């Protein structure tokens, strides 16, 4: 019980901080709009005639969600580096609570921020021509949450090891690019070179995109075509994301315990 109380308190603080930072709110609002505007109109014109057998915007949409969730989730975990630099981490470290409630609280905060931002994308979907079946929304949102959890856990693990904002920022830059392009967002991962598919197998984003695409397109296109893009079943994808998130948070706890 105490564990959940402390986790909730720490998560709550993350949300208050987010809420007070108007620039952060604004950017998280604008980013998805920008994405949709660029991908929606730009790519649609040039790539609509692709040979996927499916409207490109429909194909891309899960990737856009994943990209947004990833960006916000990663960025939200930077608060750990910030807290270390500005001394607040010690205030938490010396409290009579477990280190895991600190790690889970921070991860949960980032997860909530990232997945609620993705809600905006869901609301806007119809306006850019993405066909959404209302019934799929809860499951779609569940996966937004799971992707956010996995990425937040990963971000927390990284930020637990970083001493400065600069190094955290640099590492994020290096990670975000390959993670996005090897997520299956732009091209299916079913027929790529082995090294690519190995990386994709370790990439939590690819599981999220895989699942969300099945949820979104299921029933809209013939099953044979959908099967061509699909790598794992939806439950397997969900399980991977959950386990990935938990392992990453646990790793962060280990680092907290070792390094303080």
């Amino acid at each position, binding site marked *: 019980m*105490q564990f959940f*109380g*402390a986790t909730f*308190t720490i998560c709550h*603080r993350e949300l*208050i*901080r987010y809420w*007070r*930072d108007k620039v952060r709110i604004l950017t998280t609002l604008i980013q998805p709009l920008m994405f949709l505007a660029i991908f929606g109109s730009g790519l649609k014109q040039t790539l609509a005639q692709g040979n996927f057998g499916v409207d490109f915007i429909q194909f891309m949409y899960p990737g856009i969600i994943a990209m947004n969730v990833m960006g916000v989730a990663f960025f939200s975990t930077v608060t750990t580096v910030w807290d270390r630099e*500005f*001394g*607040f981490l*010690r*205030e*938490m*470290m*010396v*409290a*009579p*609570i477990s280190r895991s409630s600190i790690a889970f609280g921070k991860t949960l905060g980032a997860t909530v921020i990232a997945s609620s931002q993705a809600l905006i994308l869901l609301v806007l979907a119809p306006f850019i021509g993405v066909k959404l079946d209302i019934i799929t929304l809860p499951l779609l949102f569940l996966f937004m949450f799971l992707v956010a959890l996995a990425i937040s856990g990963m971000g927390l693990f990284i930020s637990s090891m970083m001493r400065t904002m600069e190094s955290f920022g640099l590492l994020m830059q290096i990670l975000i690019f390959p993670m996005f392009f090897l997520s299956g967002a732009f091209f299916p991962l079913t027929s790529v070179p082995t090294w690519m598919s190995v990386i994709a197998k370790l990439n939590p984003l690819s599981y999220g995109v895989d699942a969300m695409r099945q949820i979104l397109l299921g029933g809209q296109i013939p099953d044979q075509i959908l099967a061509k893009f699909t790598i794992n079943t939806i439950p397997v994808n969900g399980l991977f994301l959950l386990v990935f998130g938990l392992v990453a948070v646990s790793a962060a706890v280990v680092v907290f315990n070792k390094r*303080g």
Partner: protein
Amino acid sequence: MSIIKVENLVKKFGDFTAVNNISFEVKKGEVFGFLGPNGAGKSTTINMLSTLLEPTEGTAMINGFSTVSERDDVRKSVGLVFQDPSLDDKLTAEENLRFHAKLYHVPAQAYQHRMKEVLQLVDLWDRKDDQIRAFSGGMKRRLEIARGLIHYPVILFLDEPTIGLDPQTRAHLWDYILKLKREKQMTIFMTTHYMNEAEFCDRIAIIDHGQIVTLDTPENLKKGVGGNIITMQSRDKRGLKVELEKMGHSKIKDENDSLEIEVEDGASMLPKLLREVRTPIDTVGLRKPTLDDVFLHLTGRKIREENASGKDIMRQHMRMRRG
């Protein structure tokens, strides 16, 4: 009863020994000071006593609990004000306190009352809904003290509570600290390298290179130095020193622009000295020994230069930047 009991505590960072086999006890209700120069091992000791660092060797018992095997009990027993700032500047004063109270399991129905109590103690009640970034350095420090008290700890650790503050704010802060001792019989363990602050302590341990050089009340420590200190300035400082040595004074210290002589009874010695000395003297002074003299007496060095050290200036700068 000893509320802090430290035995043969050692902390090594690699080959470097930051705290070297220290032992001491602190009684309930005492204000106990750790006095020492930069890098002496003061913060390292506090970090071990507050469970943030594990000792390499030795044991520390806080409020009857082991800092290694009963961490959570120790953590609940102590309030901490770190050397470096540790408030969330995006939160209001009240939110910072609430966060802390929740992590320390302060019952919800007791919170409002305690929050008001500690904020009034440090005169911040009317600022409770302001965000911390609008606070001055002294206000932040006071809030940190209030935060350290809201879970009703039995011991308050203060690591250089007044560093980077102007003299007036420092004096104010001391009023609060002494009020705590008076009104709550709080045990206070504090570190400082301001000599005049150490005077407020019931007992002080002087720590240097990770070791306790001496431990006693400020009065006794000063008595140990001798009766009085006579200071003399002269254009011919070296000649004056030679002459004084010929007269049989052995405890002469060469300060920047003056000589300091430790004597038993300064009031009767001074006129005699002035009559006998031939070297021209510009100014003379007579004063009681300070803790500075104690440190000098014991280690042969001054605890710190007149001007703040580079590290100190950097810290103050950091405080302002974080301000």
